[in-house]
């Protein structure tokens, strides 16, 4: 059995392993872990595991990573090998820095993508205010219509629904109350304070509900596999960006691009034109790397008042480990993490791609986004609680 000092050293090593796997382990927690080990049987693997898990894991999603680390840690302790340094180095995930192939092929793809965008642009019936166009009646048919076969002129229906969603978001009101001049309910506490010297309540203080500020961060996959859906998604992003003020929009395929400013403006057509500047269209997908870039550079945009909406089919050519780790870090900060997958509309689709499987346990809501009905359903999930 290890003496406490060895225990502390072992714990520090274990903590480093956990951190390398994305668990936010503090030194305080490691001290608690040592204390916890003092009240269990150190030779009993099951007990050591449960004790460490209770102290060091702080959300269910961290458990798979914890289990992997514990496995290595226990094996190492049992083997009594050559020092903790080796162990820690061995399990540290390698950051795959490989760049996707560049050059001729990519350039060609890019050109093609640009052409595709322009075509669609031409196909649009009218310029101007797509957000305000009155809707037509054949809604039912539209609702079931898959976006991959959506005629451009029907996109106004998408816009209308998106406007509804955005308004709904903006309307969220908190049940917490703040003091107000008039209206609202009587605030007895403040009234008492204000009237203390008078012996009776003359002036009433009131309070009313405070607006809850929700922010939206959209991360949209624009890689080749998403081409069929991109036109709908763009419309969705454009409408959200312009109706609902607090939105930040990013596109990604092999790299991340912030497009909020490009989308802003009264004309959808010129927004589209500006979007063709995004160089990533129709390339491959590296979701994990793109998310890492987002977390590092734009992480401050996400807090508990933020809904993060990821639009992607989950075809990832990067490391699933990286994706899982970045998803975890995103989830830790966001109020709600929603993944919309256009492929989910197909009844025979199973989210079995490696990337999707790694990310799935970490999302709060996983839904289809291939037709209007699925969009309508989404509205119900766009709240922090």
């Amino acid at each position, binding site marked *: 059995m290890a003496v406490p000092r060895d225990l502390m050293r072992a714990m520090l090593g274990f903590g480093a392993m956990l951190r390398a796997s994305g668990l936010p382990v503090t030194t305080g927690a490691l001290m608690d872990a040592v*204390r916890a080990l003092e009240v269990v049987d150190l030779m009993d693997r099951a*007990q050591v595991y449960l004790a460490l898990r*209770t102290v060091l894991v702080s959300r269910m999603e961290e458990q798979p990573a914890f289990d992997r680390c514990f496995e290595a840690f226990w094996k190492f302790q049992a083997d009594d090998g050559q020092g903790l340094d080796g162990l820690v180095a061995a399990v540290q995930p390698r950051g795959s820095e490989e760049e996707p192939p560049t050059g001729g092929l990519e350039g060609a793809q890019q050109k093609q993508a640009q052409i595709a965008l322009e075509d669609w642009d031409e196909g649009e019936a009218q310029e101007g205010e797509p957000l305000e166009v009155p809707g037509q009646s054949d809604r039912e048919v539209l609702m079931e219509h898959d976006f991959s076969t959506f005629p451009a002129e029907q996109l106004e229906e998408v816009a209308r629904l998106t406007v509804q969603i955005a308004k709904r978001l903006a309307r969220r009101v908190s049940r917490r109350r703040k003091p107000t001049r008039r209206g609202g309910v009587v605030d007895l506490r403040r009234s*008492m304070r204000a009237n203390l010297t008078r012996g009776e309540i003359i002036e009433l203080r009131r309070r009313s509900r405070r607006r809850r500020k929700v922010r939206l961060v959209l991360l949209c996959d624009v890689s080749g596999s998403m081409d069929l859906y991109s036109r709908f998604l763009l419309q969705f992003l454009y409408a959200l960006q312009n109706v609902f003020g607090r939105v930040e929009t990013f596109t990604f395929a092999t790299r991340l691009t912030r497009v909020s400013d490009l989308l802003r403006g009264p004309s959808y057509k010129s927004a589209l034109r500006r979007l063709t500047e995004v160089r990533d269209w129709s390339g491959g997908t590296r979701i994990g790397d793109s998310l890492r870039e987002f977390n590092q550079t734009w992480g401050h945009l996400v807090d508990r008042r933020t809904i993060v909406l990821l639009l992607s089919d989950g075809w990832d050519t990067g490391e699933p480990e990286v994706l899982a780790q970045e998803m975890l870090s995103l989830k830790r900060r966001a109020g709600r993490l929603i993944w919309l997958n256009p492929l989910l509309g197909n009844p025979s689709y199973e989210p079995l791609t490696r990337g999707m499987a790694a990310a799935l346990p970490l999302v709060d809501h996983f839904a289809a986004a291939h037709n209007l009905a699925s969009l309508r359903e989404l509205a119900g999930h766009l709240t922090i609680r």
Partner: protein
Amino acid sequence: MRAEIKKIEEMMEAAEYVTDPAIAMSVHLAMTLKKPLLIEGHAGVGKTEVAKVMAKMLETNLIRLQCYEGLDAAQALYEWNYPKQLLHIKLEESTSHSLTEKEAAIFSPPFLIKRPLLQAISETGTPPVLLIDEIDRADEEFEAFLLEVLSEFQVTIPEIGTIKATQPPYVILTSNRIRELSDALRRRCLYLWIDFPGFEKEVRIVTRKVPGVNERLAREISRFMETVRTIRLAKVPGVAETLDWAQALTSLHADHLDEELVAETLGCVVKDAEDVKRLKRELATGGIARFVAAQS
């Protein structure tokens, strides 16, 4: 050392709680490390029950704070008794007491209403179990406020002064994950995820909690529930539903499941209209055999 955990398991079982090593371990650590324990899991897996059983086991009071949206410090900590204060001011109108004296009088302990948190802190004798139930329903502002109380176990009331707990209470927090909790709160707590029970555990729970249920029925019910939970439902049924159902079936004097019986009592298992439809469809195609198949 092992013996202590074994003992907790036994005591929990004696207090009518069907436990497992993970739950016993976290209760053991919450007690020895004196740290709050955060319990997460689906609705109806017995999170709140842990706190109740702990109180029973330790023979101490259970103080419960039910969280909801809009809950604020006044409702959780303390509130002045305004009507009583007003009345007092009225009665004092004719006396010659100075304003300071009047103020001191109405902001004193007799006019203080203790809410759960203050109650838990000011309790003398054996430390109580403080249950902060469904913390995810409260706002973040409240969560932040709670951090302060939980780390210091003291409360400052401007008019009276600081009240510090002589012995900190045992704290259990539960969350259904309606909202993500802050890292700051998680860091201060031990953590336990209670999953749906496995087959054997559920059988034990049913036989334990539903008197008169026969062995075969208990096993079939548990097997059925296990299968139901693998179907994608809007509201996955928890142990509470299992027990409701077992209760209903026993009162119908059933000793095994058949198609008709299941159809009649499906409302005990799933409570969502869409889910009922879905489950009926599954039953119609696969038959009941599919649900109780993997034979016990």
